[in-house]
């Protein structure tokens, strides 16, 4: 762990460098490698007749931006969920938040014929909200306590519920097969930057709320009594943090479909590096989450060419060993 303040600052700087490297690599590498100079040219002297410029601006750059945004959001959402539930296995993927958002997106794409993320992001947010409520209701014991195994099982049940409904819809309406598969597998490819612009305010709101709540989140880790002792309403704080989680996870799903395990892995890495203080841990999560998703996406491009492995599958494969490790360690303690 990085103990001293200066080490932590250095850690954040290194994290930023790592993310930038991954970002540039994600733009430069692919089926047709691009020289870095082409990126500069494309940004400042765009030439509509150059194939390289078109590929860069319409495919590579949006993809890298989406991967960074989604990776950072999911990681922060996961960290906040782990703080709120005090459960190391909590994350938007495992607790069913992503599946809920995905289901309502699939409904609005295949039944309401909505086409752009700005239109169906509201469906995603509603679905995330619904799933969060369900999991919360189901995982509370009679006396309001949250047992870790029960929270995870409730999440799995809610995921199974929404995934099987989506499968049903998919088979009933075979025209939507391709697009729905995209949501189920999770992918950051083929997104238009212009279509994302309307979603940016949502991310900004979540970020602002997050900054305001950082100290309260720290207090929350010490227990609800501690927060109450500081004269703050623990329920209200949890509710606001829940809103942040839903905003981040819901918008991420609206852009990129179901990408699991980022919200699980990254907070553990960030906590190992930066410690428990959210003021350092959350920025660390954002940087590492973005780097992880960028590199997973990059790796997926080269694993079995000419096919691309959807990034959600890459993260699931990377995340499972950690999940099993945590399960082996945690379940006996609980």
């Amino acid at each position: 762990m990085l103990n001293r303040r200066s080490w932590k600052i250095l850690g954040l700087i290194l994290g930023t460098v790592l993310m930038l490297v991954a970002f540039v690599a994600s733009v430069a590498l692919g089926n047709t490698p691009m020289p870095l100079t082409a990126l500069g040219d494309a940004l400042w002297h765009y030439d509509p007749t150059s194939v390289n410029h078109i590929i860069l601006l319409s495919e590579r750059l949006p993809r890298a931006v989406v991967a960074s945004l989604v990776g950072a959001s999911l990681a922060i959402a996961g960290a906040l969920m782990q703080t709120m539930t005090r459960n190391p296995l909590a994350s938007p993927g495992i607790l069913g938040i992503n599946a809920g958002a995905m289901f309502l997106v699939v409904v609005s794409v295949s039944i309401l014929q909505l086409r752009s993320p700005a239109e169906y992001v509201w469906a995603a947010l509603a679905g995330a909200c619904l799933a969060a409520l369900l999991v919360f209701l189901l995982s509370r014991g009679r006396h309001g306590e949250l047992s870790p195994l029960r929270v995870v099982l409730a999440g799995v049940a809610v995921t199974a519920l929404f995934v099987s409904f989506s499968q049903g819809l998919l088979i009933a309406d075979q025209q939507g097969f391709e697009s729905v598969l995209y949501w189920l597998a999770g992918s950051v490819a083929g997104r238009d930057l212009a279509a994302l612009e309307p979603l940016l305010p949502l991310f900004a709101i979540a970020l602002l709320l997050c900054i305001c709540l950082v100290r309260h989140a720290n207090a929350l880790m010490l227990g609800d009594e501690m927060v109450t002792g500081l004269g703050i309403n623990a329920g209200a704080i949890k509710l606001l943090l829940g809103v942040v989680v839903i905003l981040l996870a819901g918008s991420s799903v609206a852009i990129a479909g179901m990408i699991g395990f980022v919200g699980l892995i990254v907070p553990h890495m960030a906590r190992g590096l930066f410690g428990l203080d959210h003021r350092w841990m959350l920025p660390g999560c954002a940087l590492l989450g973005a780097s992880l998703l960028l590199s997973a996406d990059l790796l997926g491009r080269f694993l079995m060419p000419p096919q691309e492995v959807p990034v959600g599958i890459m993260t699931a494969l990377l995340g499972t060993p950690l999940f099993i490790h945590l399960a082996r360690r945690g379940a006996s303690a609980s």
Partner: protein
Amino acid sequence: MSQSLALPDHQQQTSDRRRVISIALTLSLVLLASVFASLCLGSYPTAPAAVIEALIQPAQSDIAFIVWELRLPRILLAVLVGAALAVAGAILQGIVRNPLASPDVIGITSGASLLAVLFLALLTGTLSIVWLPAAAMLGATAAMLLVFSLAWKKGVAPGRMVLVGIGLSAAMGAVTTLLIVISDDAAAMHAYVWLTGSIYAAQWRDVVGMLPWLLLCIPLALSHARHMDALRLGDMVAIGLGVNVARSRLVLIGCSVALAGAAVAYAGGLSFVGLIAPHIASLLVGRGFARLVPVAALTGALILLYADLLGRVAFLPRDLPAGIFVSGIGAPFFVYLLYRTRD
């Protein structure tokens, strides 16, 4: 629980047993009636009298082909698969001592699905489709072994096993999705329908392949009923009662894997039957294993029979996979159960 602790007097015991027997008999009659009703229903209208005639004298009936070759095998397979999944779920819930365990939660179904989809995507050209069930069984067994060995830490704690199963399911699900994404459209749709669970176009061959597993595993599980009841009270109690815990658990889990694997092999990734049928059964007759298993089997058979019937006749001319309806009914019911059983 109270039945095994407080000793009921003789009269009470007899009336209790009578109640169980009458429930089982009623369910069997309902099942028989439902089988006959779904024999009569379908895209081609058939009168009950004509169906009876076709059943008794197939040679003289012009709907004999529909009744004997199209509908009957499919209905029987639904009954067998539903029963197998229900018993597999009942065993697992008892062993894991958790009402939320089921073949699909702890990874058996996803292991079988992974190998089945692998088979559909890569080998359909070279190997006959007859081998699909074998591939699925192999996947189920491998998944269970993997879950066991990863959850092993001086013994297998049930909670840890469930969590490890969930993690492995996620990974195997990811690989399955990957296979679907990379295979061509027709194979992908075939695999997808298979994953949802469907007994469309079942043949006598499938019924004959499925039946031995039930005939073998259900009696074997029932012969361990006393051990199971002791295991449910905890390992210490079971050892105190003279049960060889490790061996009984192995035999029972083996039965569960074989039943679930066979069911998935012939009907695809049906979820929720193994979860909710044992719950309904225990609401009806309590948790004693010897009475739970037959009632759960009948309940599971009924659930799948009606789900398949709905898929067959509700949206004519389309024939939708039974899995859609099983989860349509099963998932909300499961959420209700989870809410009700919190403790």
